[in-house]
């Protein structure tokens, strides 16, 4: 009888750690001026090492790779948690409009907070508050009790995102941000202007989110039998939902405050993992953190290197990959008669 054993968990997670290291190495070495793996390693290990290669690796690429790893992990884990809580494999923080709420919070503080003396450090808390508000709104509108139908999911997501984008542009105009490309990067999602000083905070939020979510991983399995069955089997369903939605808001807020609206990572990564590893959340949640990190690091390296001499926003790449997958999943649900 195939069942998750701790040994399998350890082997899979160790394997994924190796993948993360490999994608990070690629991100540090690849670029307009390639750096050898040995030189990159030296630059990392010896902070006193000077020279252009060391400056590029430490000063430019390392913060960016770390940002990609953190954001990818946050978005993928949030995706897994939303899918389990809403009992719909199409749920994703971006599709649901939760990322939109977070971005609205972040841009709001940037546009209007200057007068209050709020700097960039105020962005993560504001993005977290935005994500939390969007989650509350989603539950309020959908009158959520158990499963979220795909129709409601799509409709609320479309409206949330449209309203959030409009409000972001409005706020940015008010705050005089619309001239530059920064608003464009918030809306499409990019790591090009990831603020290095936030990365420690983001890591902390990611760790906090994971620490909240992991003890409930088995409860997430039970939730897919329905809330009443889970409750009857001894799961404190209401507490589980509160803790887990709090942790998704933490992670979405963290991700969005460094990268803006990167979409579909929370859809692609969990879906691929479920195909390979099965649906057990005890494995899926930590695996999503690692695989999401690796996936976004890879996408960001592609964004930096695909077009010589210029850079794509990474959100465009994930959307190009994720959009078709979303439609495919929707079609499969349709065929199985799971809609609306």
């Amino acid at each position, binding site marked *: 009888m195939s069942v998750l*054993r701790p040994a399998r968990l350890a082997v899979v997670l160790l394997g994924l750690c190796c993948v993360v290291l490999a994608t990070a190495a690629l991100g540090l070495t690849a670029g307009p001026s390639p750096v050898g793996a040995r030189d990159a390693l030296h630059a990392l290990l010896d902070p006193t090492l000077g020279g252009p290669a060391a400056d590029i690796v430490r000063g430019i690429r390392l913060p960016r790779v770390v940002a990609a790893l953190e954001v990818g992990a946050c978005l993928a884990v949030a995706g897994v948690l939303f899918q389990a809580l809403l009992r719909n494999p199409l749920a994703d923080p971006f599709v649901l409009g939760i990322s939109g709420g977070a971005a609205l919070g972040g841009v709001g503080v940037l546009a209007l907070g200057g007068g209050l003396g709020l700097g960039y450090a105020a962005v993560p808390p504001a993005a977290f508050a935005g994500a939390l508000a969007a989650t509350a709104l989603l539950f309020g509108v959908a009158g959520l009790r158990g499963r979220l139908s795909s129709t409601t999911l799509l409709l609320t997501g479309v409206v949330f995102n449209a309203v959030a984008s409009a409000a972001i542009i409005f706020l940015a105009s008010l705050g005089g941000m619309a001239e530059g490309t920064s608003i464009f990067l918030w809306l499409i999602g990019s790591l090009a202007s990831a603020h290095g000083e936030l990365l420690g905070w983001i890591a902390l939020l990611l760790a906090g989110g994971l620490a909240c979510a992991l003890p409930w991983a088995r409860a997430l399995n039970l939730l897919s039998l329905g809330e*009443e069955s889970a409750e009857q*089997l001894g799961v404190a369903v209401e507490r589980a939902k509160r803790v887990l939605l709090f942790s998704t808001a933490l992670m979405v807020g963290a991700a969005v405050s460094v990268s803006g609206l990167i979409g579909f990572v929370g859809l692609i990564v969990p879906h691929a993992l479920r195909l390979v590893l099965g649906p057990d959340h005890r494995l899926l949640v930590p695996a999503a953190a690692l695989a999401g990190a690796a996936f976004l690091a890879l996408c960001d390296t592609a964004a930096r290197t695909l077009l010589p001499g210029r850079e794509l926003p990474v959100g465009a790449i994930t959307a190009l990959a994720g959009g078709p997958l979303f439609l495919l999943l929707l079609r499969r649900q349709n065929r199985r008669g799971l809609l609306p």
Partner: protein
Amino acid sequence: MSERLALRGVSVRLGERPVLDGVDLEVRAGEVVGLLGRNGAGKTTLLRVASGLLRPAAGSVSIEGRDAGALRRRERARAVALVPQETAVDFPFSVAEVVLMGRTPHLGWLGFEGARDLAVARAAMERLGIAALAERSILELSGGERQLAVVARALAQEPRLLLLDEPTAFLDLRHRIEVLAHVRAFAAAGGGALVVSHDLGIAARFCDRLVLIARGRVLAVGTPAEVLVPARLREAFEIEAAVLAGPDGQPVVVPRALA
């Protein structure tokens, strides 16, 4: 301790509407009790109260002599298992994984299943004849097979009280008899079972006692022969029915017209 479940004067309100009104009901060890009544009579609500999912507005619920409200979740989940009418699973868990979910109240804090959990789950699947399906995705099964998996999950919980809400509504005749035979075997081993059913024939054949409810109140309690009489059926179901004697002496209800 022979009493598995006791409801005393249980009332439940949904807004202004009373759903259950002063219900008394008992399930003793070794017996299968059938719960009959029209749609909306309060059967499912009664099961939710008995399983601890719903607190009654008035009255008391005790499980094995202890107040249900005072039981910890885990204790309650070890004592009582519930098989809902239908279980929709959203992710492709294997049948074995679904059955192992029944072990939840018995697991240690790390939440990994041990050798005994696997053995109990395997035995439950073998008992229900679905061992061959263990590795199949629950999403690929027919409705009947899925329900057998859910019953196996409830048995893997090793409860002492089994609550079943129309467990056979979507099953063919063979599967119906199979599920009820397993419920009987569960009772024979010392458990108590409360089964909601719309199938009066199955209820008469497999239950020791029947409880007939209408509009939230208990109309009649007793053996199938005592409960399934034309006057009671007219009152509870608003139908005219003839009651014949079956081959084993159990009553056979033949519905004839609206009352």
